[in-house]
């Protein structure tokens, strides 16, 4: 579905990513890991449209990606993903309001009621149904990330991009969030690309794990070579288990599988 062919990301002399060619299938959960500075987040920003590749092309469903971020790609960052001046409900409504009210960017009357109902369903999915009127500053980090996910999912993006979404959370909360994202991924048939530092998380959640690192290293000019995909591991066993689980209709705890 998403296809990168020979993508390079260069900032002046510095090569961050080189020769990235990838095909990401619909419904896959791709984890990207790698050492710090290997360009994980750069790759995510290029897919997001926030940065442009200096060479190569990216296509989504065969169409070249537009040069800026749009509603076809949702995102959850580690921090600052939710708007501090809006309540939980307001944050979730925002995507619907942008789409349905080009000038006022607000909905009124029946349209607002319908949007609130839709937002309410989405918030119930992420477990925030009882917190609709809280402001982000009144919530824990985990709740803020739940909200960020709901806010992104209400736009039904083709791809959901996660940039170390659970990196700042306590281990216990993180486990809850893993369960949540796995459930949502399955229920909504999402395609997810997640950047993480946590190898266990990458293998626990993903159906495919990409490892970014530099293939070559010039000690005199470390910026001359960029990182590429050095391991591309398809977790086929897991995909099969997933499929079986869906056939017989039982939920398998995905963390235990790897």
């Amino acid at each position: 579905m998403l296809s990168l062919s020979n993508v390079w990301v260069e900032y002046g002399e510095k090569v961050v990513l080189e020769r990235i060619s990838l095909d990401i299938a619909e419904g896959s959960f791709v984890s990207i890991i790698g050492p710090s500075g290997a360009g994980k987040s750069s790759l995510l920003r290029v897919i997001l449209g926030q940065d442009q590749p200096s060479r190569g092309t990216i296509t989504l469903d065969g169409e070249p990606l537009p040069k800026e971020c749009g509603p076809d790609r949702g995102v959850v960052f580690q921090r600052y993903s939710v708007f501090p001046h809006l309540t939980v409900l307001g944050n979730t409504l925002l995507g619907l309001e942008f789409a349905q009210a080009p000038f006022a960017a607000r909905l009124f009357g029946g349209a607002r009621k319908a949007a609130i109902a839709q937002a309410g369903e989405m918030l119930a999915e992420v477990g925030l149904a009882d917190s609709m009127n809280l402001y982000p500053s009144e919530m824990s980090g985990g709740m803020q990330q739940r909200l960020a996910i709901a806010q992104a999912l209400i736009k039904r993006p083709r791809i959901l991009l996660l940039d170390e979404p659970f990196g700042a959370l306590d281990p216990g909360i993180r486990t809850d969030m893993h369960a949540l994202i796995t459930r949502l991924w399955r229920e909504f048939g999402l395609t997810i690309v997640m950047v993480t530092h946590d190898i266990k998380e990458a293998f626990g959640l993903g159906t495919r794990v990409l490892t970014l690192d530099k293939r070559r290293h010039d000690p005199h000019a470390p910026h001359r070579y960029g990182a590429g995909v050095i391991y591309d591991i398809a977790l086929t066993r897991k995909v099969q288990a997933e499929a079986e689980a869906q056939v017989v209709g039982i939920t398998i705890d995905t963390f235990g599988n790897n």
Partner: protein
Amino acid sequence: MRWVNRSIGRGNALLLGAIPLGVLALTYLFAAASRHAANPSDKILPLPGAMAEAMAALVFEADPLSGQFLFWADTLASLSRLGMGLGIATFSALLVGLVLGALPPVRATFGPTVTAIAVIPPIALLPILFITFGLGETAKVALIVVGIAPFMIRDVAGHIAALPREQVVKALTLGASSWQLLLRVALPQAMPRLIQALRLSLGPAWVFLISAEAIAADVGLGYRIFLVRRYLAMDVILPYVAWIALLAVAIDFLLNRTSRAAFGWAHKAGH
């Protein structure tokens, strides 16, 4: 217990805050009393009785020449000038600051102009304003606007430009246009900052108001204190200064209250 760890209760804070003010008032009374002991007709440090008497004439009695209650006429004139100046400055700061902060092409085009205007000392522009707008109300209001608007514009623009990039990207992935982003993301977050900038600008705004009134006016708080200076009328000047301070504190208090009531999210923990 170390001082950094001491928390002061509400009642104690009021009491402690009142002590320096009380000491100041007492010092003044002692100084005034000792001067009056030496010279009963001293004008430099008038006693409270003399101040009350002088003010009563301005507050409760109509001026025989103009038929106005001078104290109230001064207050009304000054507050309306200040209000207009603050209003225009705030409105333009919101408008210009918002587009300057949120839209890089606008910032590249007009940012240097705003900076250039901001570094000019406003009082140096006062003659130009008098020549352009005449000696009427317009020039005084214009001085306040010219004096505080550039600071407010730059403050709001800086705040908007410093919003986390993630927020902008998030809004774009939710399908926002530039206009929608301005309206729903930048504008609401600019508002509390705008009120803070306005509060900080109150002091300069009063300076510009009093300066303009001192130079060319026929009514106003600044006009009155500069007029009666000729007669060493400290019994009028001191209460007027206290009144100006009181008005300034009241406006600041109201603005703070408004900000807390209307933009509670900006005053919660974590911001």
